[in-house]
C-alpha cells in the first residue's frame, strides 16, 4: 500500500500540551495522508488521546500548529474541528445515554424545520439510511442508546462520523469493547473508509489490529514521539520496544527485545 499524495491531509507541528503540572504532549510533530491509516500507539499516559483531543478540538494545544491540506487552521473547540470535517469516535463514545440514536447522531447539529424546531422525522429517516449501511439489523431507533448493546452503540458513534462526511477520522480504541464479529465489522469499515480517501488516526492497544490495518505506526512514549515507521519495515517486537522502552529500532538491542518476552 502506497501513499501517493504529496501534501499531507493533516499536519500537527511541535504541539505541546501541559496540564496540572504534567507535560502530556511534548513537541510532537505528526502527519497523515489521505487514504492512509496511522496507528497511534503507546503505553498508558503516553499522550495519544491528549494529542488527538487537540485535533478534535476537545483540548486546544498550548503551543504548536495544525495544518490541513497544507494550510494552518485554528481549532479551539469541537465545532471548529467538525467544520474542518474532522470527526472523532471517542473511547467512551461520547453518547448521551438518555437520547435516542437519531438524537445522538445529530447532537449539536440537529436538523430543524422552517420554524427552527427539531425535525425529528427527518433526523430519524437519515439515521435509518446511514445505520442501514453499517448495521442493517438495527431497529431500535426510538430507544435511548443506554439500552443498546456495546456494538450497537459503537455503530451509532461511527455512523455519526460517517454521516457528516469526515475527511479526517480519529478512532480511539474502536474495538476495545467489542466481540469478534463486531470487531471484524469495524475493521472492514476502516478499510472501506481508507479506500474512499479518508485519513484515519487509529489509537489502539491491540498490536495485531494496528499491524493489520495501519500503513504507518507512530509510537508515543511519555508525551514524545519515539518514531514514526512504515508498517512493512518493522517487526512487532521492535514496535513493542518503542512502546515499552521508548527506544526506536535503531537504538534498541537484541537482548532488550528478548527481555520483553520474559
Amino acid at each position: 500500500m502506497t501513499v501517493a499524495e504529496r501534501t499531507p491531509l493533516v499536519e500537527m507541528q511541535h504541539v505541546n500540551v501541559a496540564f496540572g503540572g504534567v507535560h502530556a504532549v511534548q513537541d510532537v510533530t505528526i502527519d497523515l495522508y489521505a487514504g492512509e491509516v496511522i496507528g497511534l500507539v503507546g503505553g498508558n499516559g503516553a499522550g495519544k488521546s491528549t494529542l488527538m483531543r487537540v485535533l478534535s478540538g476537545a483540548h486546544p494545544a498550548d503551543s504548536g500548529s495544525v495544518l490541513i491540506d497544507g494550510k494552518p487552521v485554528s481549532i479551539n473547540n469541537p465545532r471548529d474541528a467538525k467544520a474542518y470535517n474532522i470527526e472523532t469516535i471517542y473511547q467512551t463514545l461520547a453518547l448521551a445515554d438518555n437520547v435516542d440514536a437519531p438524537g445522538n447522531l445529530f447532537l449539536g447539529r440537529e436538523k430543524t424545520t422552517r420554524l427552527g424546531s427539531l425535525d425529528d422525522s427527518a433526523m430519524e429517516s437519515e439515521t435509518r439510511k446511514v445505520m442501514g449501511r453499517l448495521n442493517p439489523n438495527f431497529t431500535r431507533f426510538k430507544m435511548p442508546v443506554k439500552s443498546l448493546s456495546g456494538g450497537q452503540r459503537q455503530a451509532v458513534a461511527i455512523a455519526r462520523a460517517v454521516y457528516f462526511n469526515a475527511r479526517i477520522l480519529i478512532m480511539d480504541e474502536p474495538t476495545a469493547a467489542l466481540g469478534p464479529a463486531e470487531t471484524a465489522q469495524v475493521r472492514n469499515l476502516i478499510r472501506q473508509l481508507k479506500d474512499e480517501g479518508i485519513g484515519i488516526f487509529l489509537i489502539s492497544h491491540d498490536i495485531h489490529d494496528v499491524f493489520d490495518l495501519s500503513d504507518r505506526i507512530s509510537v508515543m512514549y511519555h508525551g514524545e514521539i519515539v518514531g514514526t515507521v512504515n508498517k512493512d519495515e518493522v517487526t512487532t517486537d521492535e514496535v513493542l520496544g518503542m512502546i515499552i522502552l521508548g527506544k526506536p529500532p535503531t537504538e534498541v538491542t537484541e537482548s532488550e527485545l528478548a527481555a520483553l518476552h520474559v
Partner: protein
Amino acid sequence: MTNVADAAPASGQVQPPARTSIRGLIAQTEIDLRLFGMLLALGVILLTFNILSGGKFFQPTNMVTLAVQASGVAVIATGMVLVIVSRNIDLSVGSLVGVIAMTYALLMTDWMPNVLGMGPDFPFRWLIALGLGIGLGALVGGLQGFIIAYIGVPSFIVTLGGLLSIRGVVWYLSSGAARSGLDPDFQLIGGGAQGSIGGTLTWILALVGCLAIVLLLINGRRQRRRFDFPVRPVWAEVLLGVLGCAAVVAVAAFANANLWPEGLAARIAARDNWGPTPEGGWQIPTGFPYPMVLLLGVTLVMAWLATRRRFGRYVYAYGGNPDAAELAGINTRWTILKTFVLMGILCAIAAAIASARLNGATLDVGQSYELYVIAAAVVGGTSFAGGIGSIPGAVLGAFVMQSLAYGLSFMGVNSPGQNVVAGIVLIIAVGFDTLNRRRGS
C-alpha cells in the same frame, strides 16, 4: 429523545401486531405508562377522599379550589424539571416568589402611583406590573445562572445563598409588614368566580383541545407514513383520540358545573342591569379559573421547549452525559444559564398568582415553595441523577401532592398530619420509580 409532547407519547418500539394480551394491546397504543400511572394515582386519591367524605369531596367547586391551590407550585415545577435534568438544583424559588410578590404589591400600592406617576386609572397597570415582575425574575435567575454556568459555583450553593439573601431583601423592602390592595384586574389572576374565563370560553378551549389532540394524532401518523416508519394500529389511534377528547370535555364540563355564588351574581346583576333574576337563580358557570389557564399555557410552552426545540434537547443531552454534550459542540453554559432564567420567569408568574390570591403580599409568601416544587418534579418522574424528567409529569406530581394536602385539610386533618402523609408519599413515589428503573435496565 423520545417524543413526549404527543398526546400519548411513545415509550418504546411498537410491538408486532400479533399480540393480543393486555400488555401487548397497551404497548400498541404507545401510551407513556408512567404518566398514565400517575393519572390513575390521582384518580384513586380523589376517589378515596370522596368515599371518606360521603360524596362531598368530588364537587366542582372543591376541585376548582384544588386546581387553583396547585397552580403556583405546578408552574414553577415545569421549570424545575429542566434544572434537575441538567444536574442542577434551584433552592431559591421560594424566596424569589416572595420578593417578586412583594414587588407587585409595592408597585401597585406605592411605587406606581407615587414614584412613576401611574395612578390607579393608568391603562393596563396590572400588565405593566406583571411585566416588571417577570423582568425582575429573569434578571435574578440570569444572575444566578451566570454564576453557576460561567463561574462554576455549584448550583446548590448559589441558590442556597439566593434563598437566604433574597428572603432578607423582602424584609428590607417591606419593613416586615404586609402590603395589600392590588389592582382589581391583577386580582383576577388569582382565580375566584370573576377570575375565571367563563362558560363559553371554557367550551371553546375544550373544543380547541380536542381538535388539537386529533390533529396531533393525524399529523403524527402522516409523518410516520412519510418515512415508512411503523404506525400505531388504527384502533389505537381512534381509542386515543376518543379518550383524549372525552377527558378534555369532561374536565371542561366539570369546570362549567362550578357556578357563581348567587349572592355575587345578584350583586353584579344589579350593578350591570341584567334584568330580573331568572327562576332558580342566575346559574352562571365559572369555567376554568385564570390560574389554571395560565398553568395550561405554561405547561404547553415548557413541554414544547423541552421536546421540540434544540434548547430542550441540549438540556437533556447535557443531563445524560455532560461530556458528550461538550464534545458535540453544544454551548452548554449558555444552555444552563437559560434554564435558570426560565426559573426566574416562572417564579414571577407563580408570584402573580400567589399575590393576586392574597390581594397583597406578606413577608413569608412563597416560603418553602422550593420543597413543594422539587417534590412535584420528583414525584412526576424527574431523577436527581440527571437526564430524566417529564414536564407533564411534574404538573401531575404537583396535583397529586396538592390533592393530598387539600383532601386532608377538607377532612379536618391538621398540618402535622398533612406533612407526615406528604413525606411518606414522596418516598413511596420515588422508591417506586427507582425500583421500576432498576427492573427495566
